[in-house]
């Protein structure tokens, strides 16, 4: 019993070590890739697959987040006669928290799953070994362009999610629930700062990096067979989801500390 637990703990430590090494190698390869123009076509291709093709699902996610928030929050605020403040609540939630997190979760499902399945299949069909056998570093050729594309485009995708979240919230609040449009935007403008939007976008950078790195690692280390690829995809999504939530919490704490340090008076008002 103790032996089994010890062996599993040792295996976990080894896996964490391998993942840390993978992150380091990917980071170094990504920086080198940015310095070499020959690798730009690879990054560009991945940007198209990862970024451009994700725009519709991300916009749909954002729109529904905004619309659902409006429906849910209206009754509470109307009960206190504060329904005109609905815009602040929706927009700050969308740009700072729900937009980035839910868009990232959607990306983890759409991109993370696809990356793991693609690289996992390449692994079990010896295509990654083939890359190595031809004297090419598979991390540089396969992982770095995907990580860079995800890292660079997730913030932009989050802007799309925010935009549609704001429009969705506006549509339900003003058109459907009849809140005064001028009041809706006026309260929104006074409550949502550039800082809030920036937080959401910076979160996207971290979320994108985490999704791509975890998904590529799971693909590279996937076990043989269809079951192995399926299991790697599941593990990649679960690990990405948990890391999104953990990063969200950690970044919220950090940004709050930064905000309190630079604008202490504002927080007292």
């Amino acid at each position, binding site marked *: 019993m103790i032996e089994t637990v010890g062996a599993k703990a040792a295996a976990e430590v080894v896996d964490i070590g391998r993942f840390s090494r993978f992150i380091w190698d990917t980071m170094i390869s990504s920086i080198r890739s940015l310095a070499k123009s020959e690798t730009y076509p690879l990054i560009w291709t991945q940007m198209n697959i990862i970024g451009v093709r994700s725009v519709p699902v991300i916009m749909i996610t954002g729109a529904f987040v905004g619309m659902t928030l409006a429906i849910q929050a209206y009754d509470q605020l109307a009960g206190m006669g504060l329904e005109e403040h609905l815009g602040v609540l929706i927009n700050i939630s969308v740009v700072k928290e729900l937009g980035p997190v839910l868009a990232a979760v959607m990306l983890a499902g759409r991109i993370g799953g696809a990356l793991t399945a693609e690289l996992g299949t390449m692994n079990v069909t010896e*295509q990654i070994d083939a890359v190595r*056998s031809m004297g*090419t570093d598979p991390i540089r050729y396969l992982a770095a362009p995907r990580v860079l594309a995800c890292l660079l485009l997730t913030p932009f995708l989050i802007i799309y999610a925010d935009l549609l979240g704001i429009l969705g919230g506006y549509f339900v609040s003003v058109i459907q629930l009849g809140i005064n449009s001028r009041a809706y935007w006026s309260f929104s403008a006074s409550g949502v700062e550039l800082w809030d939007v920036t937080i959401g976008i910076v979160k996207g950078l971290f979320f994108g990096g985490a999704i791509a790195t975890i998904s590529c690692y799971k693909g590279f280390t996937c076990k043989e067979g269809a079951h192995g690829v399926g299991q790697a995809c599941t593990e990649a999504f679960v690990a990405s989801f948990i890391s999104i939530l953990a990063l969200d919490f950690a970044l919220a704490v950090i940004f709050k500390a930064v905000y309190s340090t630079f604008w202490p008076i504002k927080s007292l008002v």
Partner: protein
Amino acid sequence: MENIERNNQAGGINSDSIIRLENLTKGFGGNIILDNISLTVEQGKTTVIIGPSGCGKTVLVKHLIVLLRPSSGEVYFRKQRIDNLGENELNKIRMHYGFLFQGGALFDSLSVAENILFPITQHYKINDWRQMDELVKAKLAMVGLDGFQQFYPAKLSGGQRKRVALARAIALNPEVILYDEPTTGLDPINSDVIDELILKLQRELGVTSVIVTHNMTSAYKIADRIIMLHQGKIIADSDAAGIRNHPHPVVQRFINGQANEDDLAVLRASSAIFQSQFLPRDFEE
């Protein structure tokens, strides 16, 4: 192109051995696959490795190019120890090798022409793409598939995929070509086509070949030397005639395709169980 040709001639030492394994042992999770193997691969010769499934043939051939690192022992390429090199240094060594994987391992997302150009574009700056088109055409012509440049691997048959993979393996004009079960899954005619290709490359390019196979017809046809692996050890090492007359009973059973008595006893016992449980009369009742 000149660079590629130079690469082919690089390290042209007049030595008989090009790859050497010394006391190589490989285990996975306590399970020993290769047990203290020492082996020398002679330059310009075709060495065939035979043995039953799961005996470690693929693991052995992957050690020759250090796609796997040994648990203990050493791997040498042209007198240089390579199993302890970092990946960056190994990548330079690997340019002297071509590797034909069991399933071809062609990149699904790239066309046939892009697959063949892959190793070249990774190591050389291409200025003249017309010259590259000619090179692809020449490589495909060598394997009898000129005209398939724009096809994707999914559209090719098993035999065609292996031939394209072979064209990719020779793209950098390697000194050594490693073949992992090149005829597995192919019909006898396509198997013979692959054997003829291997012989043609041997004649025309003078490459050193190491071939892992189960197929004794292929082995006899192409081998200068045949090595048999069994339970992680080399049990036979001879030319085709020597293997045919080898006294070891495992070698004789393998080359004649005969199951051993223990396996047959297990099969007989299991067939008795099947008879007692699944005869049609049981279902009729």
